[in-house]
């Protein structure tokens, strides 16, 4: 289909320059003296994040401070971006724990499947967005870093509206 160009007839009897400039100046002046400004003073003021916000991960810990993860291997399996590296280990009592748990946050697509699939409610996405680093390597979060994070975790769904209606 050919592109059709609409040539709008200018209503020439309504054309004005000086008067419309003056009314335009009034409009801008009203905005200038209007004390309401939309700028958010960022480091001091921040957005309130939705409970469903999916940001960089956080690993929850038990009371003793150890990671809740039991190295079941569900999250690396379900991860569509293949960004979780997990090497399971086992202590003398037969409890499994992760020897190595790394998430490459550059590969992560923040789908939230790892949190959804986790039987121990260990790995979570975070309600967090300030992720600047000085190197690319710093974006591979290891277990120590994941457990050290303190930001609130994602709910994945809004508790007030669980079916997202």
């Amino acid at each position, binding site marked *: 289909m050919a592109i*059709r*160009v*609409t*040539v*709008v*007839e*200018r209503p*020439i*009897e*309504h*054309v*004005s*320059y*000086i*008067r419309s*400039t003056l009314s*335009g*100046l009034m*409009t*801008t*002046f009203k*905005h*200038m*003296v*209007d004390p*309401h*400004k*939309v*700028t958010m*003073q960022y480091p001091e003021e921040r957005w309130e994040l939705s409970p469903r916000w999916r940001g960089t991960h956080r690993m929850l810990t038990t009371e003793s401070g150890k990671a809740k993860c039991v190295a079941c291997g569900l999250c690396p399996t379900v991860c569509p971006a293949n960004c979780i590296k997990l090497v399971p280990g086992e202590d003398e009592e037969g409890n499994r724990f992760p020897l190595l748990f790394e998430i490459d946050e550059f590969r992560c697509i923040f789908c939230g499947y790892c949190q959804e699939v986790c039987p121990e409610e260990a790995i979570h996405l975070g309600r967090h967005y300030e992720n600047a680093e000085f190197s690319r390597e710093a974006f591979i979060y290891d277990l120590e870093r994941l457990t050290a994070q303190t930001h609130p975790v994602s709910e994945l769904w809004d508790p007030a509206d669980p079916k997202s209606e």
Partner: protein
Amino acid sequence: MSALPVLPALAVDLAAWFPRHDPQLPPDSVYTFALASSIKLLVVFTLYMLGVALLTLAERKVSAWIQDRRGPNRAGPFGLLQPVADGIKNLMKEEVRPGNADKWMFIIAPMLAFIPAMLVWAVLPLATPLPTPWGLIDMAVATLPIGYLFMLAVSSLGVYGMVLAGWSSNNKYSLLGSLRSSAQMVSYEIALGMSTIPVLLLAGNVSLHAIIDQQAHMGWNVFSLSVAWFIFLVAAFAETNRLPFDLPEAEAELVAGYHTEYSGMKFSMFFIAEYANMATMSGLMAALFFGGWDIPFTDWDNTGPYTVFKTVATLAMFAAKTGAFLFLFMWVRWTLPRFRYDQLMTLGWGIMLPLALGYILVIATATLALDWMGVPRDWRFSVSLLGLNVVLTGLLLAWGDRGKLVSPASARLDARELARRRARSTVAPSTAMGAPTARTLATAAAGAHDVTEEIH
């Protein structure tokens, strides 16, 4: 030890160089004159540069407020140190010079853009003369008897900087920008000059001092010459390349216009030059139409004897007027979109110039008539002219500003005109297959109504 006997001798010499003089009379001594001029030069230059730097901040603040934002507020209190930060950044930046650029022209152009704007301030009377123990010091850097002519001559030099910048960059967008700027400046320079002729008619002198004195005694020119002020205002916007006439640097079409290839401090010079030009035009507008340093509704400021307080008060008044116009420049910039190039030219040559010429005629006739009727040259003269201006402004708004498009002769034809031309077969029939000739284009224009209706 040997320095001490020299000191009194030096002091005696200094006293002889700068003799005491009646504070109400200009100094006789050449040395006093030279020293006073040097000090004025330094002070005006410093304040001017400082003001221009602050103007860049003011522009950003005003634009932010108009757009419901806050503007720079991180560097220093209220962002007052932002110009310093910008200056340091620009000095530290790498200066890129295109390989095929004309080296010396490329370097000279930013200076040429900046210097003429500053030169005009040399002749602007900033306040009433300052009485000092060494004589009465005039508050203009150079008290030129032909200040007005100097101003016209110098302000038109500003275009050289832009033309050279565009040409030496060896870049087609820069060149287009500078060509536009030269065409624009030449066009509006005429309207600008013509709009100030009525001022000269009233003052009867080309000295800026005389022009201000006349306004101090007769009332400001903006009331007696409102239309001339309007023309001057529009031309000033065009002369300073500010929106709605910032075609030389139209970002959407020309990247950044004449200063596309400039970086670092050289770019900053162009930036400063723009604000310097604004300040100059604002100062001129204050001097020519708003009474310069004259404080309204009072007479004490324009009659002797001169005091320091008078100087300070009138200086503040002049600064306030200039500042008000600077704000107007910014306010308009963040209100209006850009004119199209053909509209700009039509406005300049087709409307502003005839308007200015006609106004000269009207004012000359009115002055002659009022003189003939014996109206004295004081407030009565101004009120009579004001009455005339009210009528003219009413006409301008009601008739001149209604139903008229600023567009050139080559604009889209209306249907009747198109039919007439087609009947006279001035529109050539299509000759080559597929080539969009005048006829096919005309048909398309005529069919535009149908298309519009179809979509509705």
